């Protein structure tokens, strides 16, 4: 049995851990509020962008001449996966969930005999993937220095992707991120951005015809790269809200577990203290009796 001193030390160490997790929870809660706000504020932009693109692409009659970003290269051989994770740990299953989703996708690709390339955004994803898929990772982008997700970072990622696409380095691009549902639930998402998936929302497409200035093709070829940055930005916003949410609930759990542990240790401490006193008393009494 642990000595009284050991127990005392353990209790105080658990208590100070609890203080840290509690503080982290508070910080995450404050950041979550902000991240959630900006995720919500960012939604109209990406939604409107999506709508315009959908309207446009429905208007394109000649699919074979459409920009490659919309129609694809015609091949499906090389897949690029952009894995978006956080730069910091201690956020529960946040990163693990994305990685799990991504890995099952990689496996599927492998079975189909497709070629795989990976770009990781955020250092945690890189750390987890580089052991098994190190040779597949072609780039690692990390925004440790920027405090919040901002559009310029997203544009940078978008540019790298488009550059690589134009060099014919891949045919299909999918981004992986966590969609923020609420504080406890984040849904790992796989979204294909190149070629653009336009069939999904066909039910609510408007039949209205637009006037275009300049012509459709030019608008499309200008808009599609922008849309990619926008989608990435949306993913980044969702991700940062999810990260804070995941961290908050993880830290909440940790604080509660620490509390339980302190309770248990305190009981044990009191018991062994009592046992020690009883033992001493017995010794004294039996010593007095023998006299």
């Amino acid at each position, binding site marked *: 049995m642990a000595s009284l001193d050991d127990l005392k030390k353990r209790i105080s160490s658990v208590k100070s851990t609890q203080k840290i997790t509690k503080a982290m929870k508070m910080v995450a809660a404050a950041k979550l509020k902000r991240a959630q706000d900006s995720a919500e504020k*960012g939604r109209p932009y990406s939604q409107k962008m999506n709508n315009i693109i959908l*309207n446009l692409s429905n208007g394109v009659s000649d699919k074979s001449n459409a920009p490659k970003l919309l129609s694809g290269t015609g091949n499906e051989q090389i897949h690029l996966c952009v894995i978006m994770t956080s730069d910091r740990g201690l956020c529960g299953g946040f990163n693990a969930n994305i990685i799990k989703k991504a890995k099952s996708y990689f496996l599927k690709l492998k079975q189909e005999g497709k070629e795989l390339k990976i770009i990781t955004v955020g250092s945690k994803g890189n750390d987890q993937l580089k052991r098994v898929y190190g040779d597949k990772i072609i780039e690692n982008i990390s925004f440790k220095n920027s405090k919040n997700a901002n559009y310029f970072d997203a544009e940078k990622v978008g540019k790298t992707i488009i550059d690589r696409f134009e060099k014919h380095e891949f045919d299909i691009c999918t981004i992986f991120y966590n969609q923020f549902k609420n504080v406890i639930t984040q849904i790992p998402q796989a979204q294909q951005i190149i070629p653009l998936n336009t069939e999904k929302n066909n039910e609510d497409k408007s039949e*209205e015809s637009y006037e275009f200035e300049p012509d459709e093709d030019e608008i499309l070829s200008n808009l599609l790269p922008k849309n990619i940055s926008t989608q990435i930005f949306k993913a980044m916003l969702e991700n940062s809200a999810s990260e804070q949410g995941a961290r908050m609930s993880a830290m909440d759990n940790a604080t509660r577990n620490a509390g339980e542990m302190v309770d248990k240790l305190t009981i044990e401490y009191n018991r062994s203290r009592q046992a020690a006193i009883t033992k001493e008393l017995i010794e004294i009494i039996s010593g007095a009796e023998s006299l």
Partner: protein
Amino acid sequence: MSEEFKVEIVNPEKSFLSKEDVTEVVVPAFEGEMGILKDHISIISFLKPGIITINSKSGEEKFYVEDGIVEFKDNNLSVLTSSIFNLKQIEKGKINELIKIAEEESNKPDVSDQSKFLTDQKIQVLRTIN
């Protein structure tokens, strides 16, 4: 009959401006300035660097934009842009900074004709508001 329509300007970070009582908007479309009144035909167009002027009941407002897309549909005008500034709030220093960045961009040797045209346009507009 009312002559008003709705304008919404959004940038990636937030909804920048939303107004219901707008009578006329002039946007710097890619192929020239374009005035939009109520019941304009549905249109999608690009913006080049320039000034957006919004006339509403509460007066005239001007914004500087660098790029973007306008969509007009069912008397809803949406402007999607990544960089927009209210002319009243923009500071001299910021304008000068933007000019400097644009000039550097324009003087790069490997710049394409189109982007050179755009940055020159940007410099011009910025100089006029300065």
